[in-house]
């Protein structure tokens, strides 16, 4: 029985990309308990609902998080469209799906890079981010922005993508796939990478269900859960099977996210094949009627939930967003119990934390 010590970890820490604070209770080199405390980037943007009209609020909602900004905009627009009974054109649905999947590719590449940086594989980190820049170039070409796009609006999307650009998008992504293969081979087969990931941070299927884990965290523990299966957007036409692994450790979570990158590229290619011609938005006028609407969306990090309450005016009465990291923090705390102190950054990273989503 060793002596118990508490080590404060964060919010500013050399290996921590996100401002979260953890009190790590350690005994010798083992973590006995981890107590998270958050609130460093709480802005209170849900309250802005009282000051911004529902059409302007899209810009605020997009800035919940700069990594999955498109998804947040989509989720919010979907709830308002539901409240107002707006049916958006099919082409807009396709375009939204394409952009959302492109976000997933960029987000997972970003995460793979951060993970590589976390276990000290600097060149792998650089290569992941080098590939990611190509996705950002596609974003810049189609929306005008690199991280914040403002392309989703209530009633559809703001910009159309022509046929040539769509084809170019697919060819760029297909070209990327080959280079990505080399990187993923390293993640899968490299001896030292495996040493850091296999068997670390085990989360059983029962615990994942009990602690309400979502997204890749749940899928790596053998739960076949993916909101895209419910067929929002045009996902029902894209025919896909969620990537599920059963090992439940950091390695499995990495595998899930890597397979999802390839899957998203396939989905974009399929959507580009199927996309119909037509309008990209419908005009939206008048107040948001009284009522409530809820929507769910599969973000790169897992299930996100959106809620809007209308008040028969230009201003909504309430919005609420529940983000995936929020749901994964209990699972993270669970995996931290009993781990080595040196593995702590790895475990925090593998839930793909996005604290600015969590605190809003």
């Amino acid at each position: 029985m060793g002596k118990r010590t508490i080590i404060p970890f964060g919010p500013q820490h050399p290996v921590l990309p996100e401002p979260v604070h953890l009190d790590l209770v350690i005994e010798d080199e083992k973590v006995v308990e981890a107590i998270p405390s958050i609130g460093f980037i709480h802005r209170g943007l849900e309250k802005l609902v009282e000051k911004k009209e529902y059409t302007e609020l899209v810009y605020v909602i997009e800035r919940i998080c700069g990594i999955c900004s498109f998804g947040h905009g989509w989720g919010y627009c979907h709830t308002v469209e539901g409240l107002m009974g707006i049916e958006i054109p099919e082409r807009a649905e396709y375009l939204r799906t394409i952009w959302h999947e492109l976000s997933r590719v960029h987000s997972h590449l970003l995460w793979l890079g951060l993970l590589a940086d976390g276990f000290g594989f600097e060149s792998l980190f650089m290569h992941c981010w080098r590939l990611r820049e190509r996705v950002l170039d596609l974003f810049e070409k189609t929306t005008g922005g690199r991280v914040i796009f403002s392309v989703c609006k209530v009633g559809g999307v703001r910009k159309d993508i022509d046929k040539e650009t769509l084809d170019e998008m697919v060819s760029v992504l297909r070209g990327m796939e080959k280079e990505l293969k080399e990187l993923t081979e390293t993640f899968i087969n490299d001896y030292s990478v495996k040493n850091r990931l296999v068997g670390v941070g085990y989360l059983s299927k029962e615990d994942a269900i009990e602690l309400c884990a979502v997204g890749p965290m749940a899928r790596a523990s053998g739960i076949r859960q993916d909101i895209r299966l419910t067929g929002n957007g045009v996902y029902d036409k894209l025919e896909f099977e969620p990537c599920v692994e059963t090992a439940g450790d950091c390695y499995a979570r990495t595998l899930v996210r890597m397979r999802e990158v390839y899957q998203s590229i396939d989905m974009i290619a399929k959507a580009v094949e199927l996309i119909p011609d037509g309008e990209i938005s419908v005009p939206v006028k008048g107040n948001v009627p009284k009522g409530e609407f809820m929507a769910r969306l599969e973000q790169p990090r897992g299930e996100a939930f959106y809620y809007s309450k209308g008040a028969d005016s230009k201003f909504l009465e309430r919005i609420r967003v529940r983000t995936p990291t929020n749901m994964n923090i209990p699972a993270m705390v669970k995996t931290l119990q009993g781990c080595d102190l040196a593995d702590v950054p790895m475990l925090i990273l593998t839930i793909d934390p996005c604290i600015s989503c969590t605190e809003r």
Partner: protein
Amino acid sequence: MSYVTKSPWIIHYDGSSCNGCDIEVLACLTPMYDVERFGIINTGNPKHADIFLVTGSVNEQNITVVKLIYEQMPEPKVVVAIGICATSGGIFKECYNIMGGIDTVIPVDVYVPGCAARPEAIIDGVVKGLGVLAEKRAAMDQKPAVAAEVKEKEEA
């Protein structure tokens, strides 16, 4: 770029930004923009750093963290506020938990506009910061001389 004779190290703290500027700061360090070719390295230790990059605005909770990092940095030091949130609060200015730009807490030398700030703009901001750093260093070198002059005058 004539003042890049030394390798400035940067430290980055995410105030209450949306991660947009954060990932652009990181993008500066990676192969596409690669500021490491100028000797600029991202460090996690405030005592190693010359330039403090802050994204996002301050709130009650992180005000001490920002101050502590700033105080721990050795002189001369430069603060670069990245993005409109760090400059003035930006889109979140009216939020109840936002106190405003970084300059409400610590002195800021360079402001980089944008939402999110582009990597080119961030690099430009850091290069401007290098100029300020050189000036501050020169001022520090002069200080002992100035003090001696004053002393001489007093004695005379």
